[in-house]
């Protein structure tokens, strides 16, 4: 295996990980061979399907449980809605970020102003995962 095959190897690692843990379907995957991803050495970005707060948080909690050295974030761009994300390593060592857009249920997140960025404990994701509104009751499978 050469460094030139980085994208291929990362995809292979991602695929076997997704299959092994039967993780929720993704909306998008962005993989690079490493040379242009920012300061933090992330080579795989995966986006879970847009959904309510609880299913997005569930999808991310499941990912977090399968990755090494996991951390979580919550952020809201200046011009948009709320995102949740987790960062960790696949068993092969490749750093992966998994994130999701919260379509509704956001009202349970108090104080999240546009431009907000916050590191959160994984336990907070678990709380969000257990937060169900009436509107989300039929949508708790994360689009799976």
């Amino acid at each position, binding site marked *: 295996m050469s460094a030139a095959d*980085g*994208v291929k190897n990362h*995809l292979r690692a991602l*695929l076997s990980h997704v299959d092994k843990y039967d993780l929720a*379907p993704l*909306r*998008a*995957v*962005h*993989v690079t061979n490493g040379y242009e991803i920012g300061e933090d050495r992330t080579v795989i970005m995966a986006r879970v399907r847009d959904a309510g707060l609880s299913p997005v948080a569930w999808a991310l909690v499941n990912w977090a449980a399968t990755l090494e050295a996991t951390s979580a974030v919550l952020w809201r761009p200046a011009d948009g809605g709320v995102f949740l994300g987790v960062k960790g390593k696949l068993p092969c060592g490749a750093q992966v970020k998994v994130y999701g857009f919260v379509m509704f249920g956001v009202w349970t997140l108090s104080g999240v102003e546009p431009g907000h960025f916050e590191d959160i404990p994984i336990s907070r994701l678990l709380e969000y995962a257990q937060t169900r509104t009436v509107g989300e009751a039929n949508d708790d499978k994360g689009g799976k």
Partner: protein
Amino acid sequence: MNAGDSVRNFVAAFLSHVDKNKELPPVRRLMVTDRAYPFEDEPVSMCVADGPLSSVAWALVCWAASLAEVSVHLWRSTGRDGEVQVHVEGRLSSGVPVDVYGFVAFGAGVFPNLERGTFSVVPLSELLEWAKPIDGTGKGVVV
């Protein structure tokens, strides 16, 4: 495996294609998107080269040879550098549509008539010509 997981299946299709076509130039960056989202581009898009036209064209010719239903187009960016993207669109062996592209710096006679923001379809034979090493005259390609 989840049959409803199209991103997962597109990734698998890509991997099986590159396993079958071992001589393909390496991919630098790849995006796979779920087609359930109507505003996304082709489900698989990938950057395979940037640099001089001849090397970008060569990488794209190799990819084109492995794909079905190939078409080629140029697009000149509206950004500050106004670089030219050369795209090859086609289908993987499994039928999944892909967009394979490379970047060529604008300038020094490369596509001098291609305005910013312009899209231009070119024949595959043209891409083959570009893949030949440039001669010593420094002359670029005129589109």
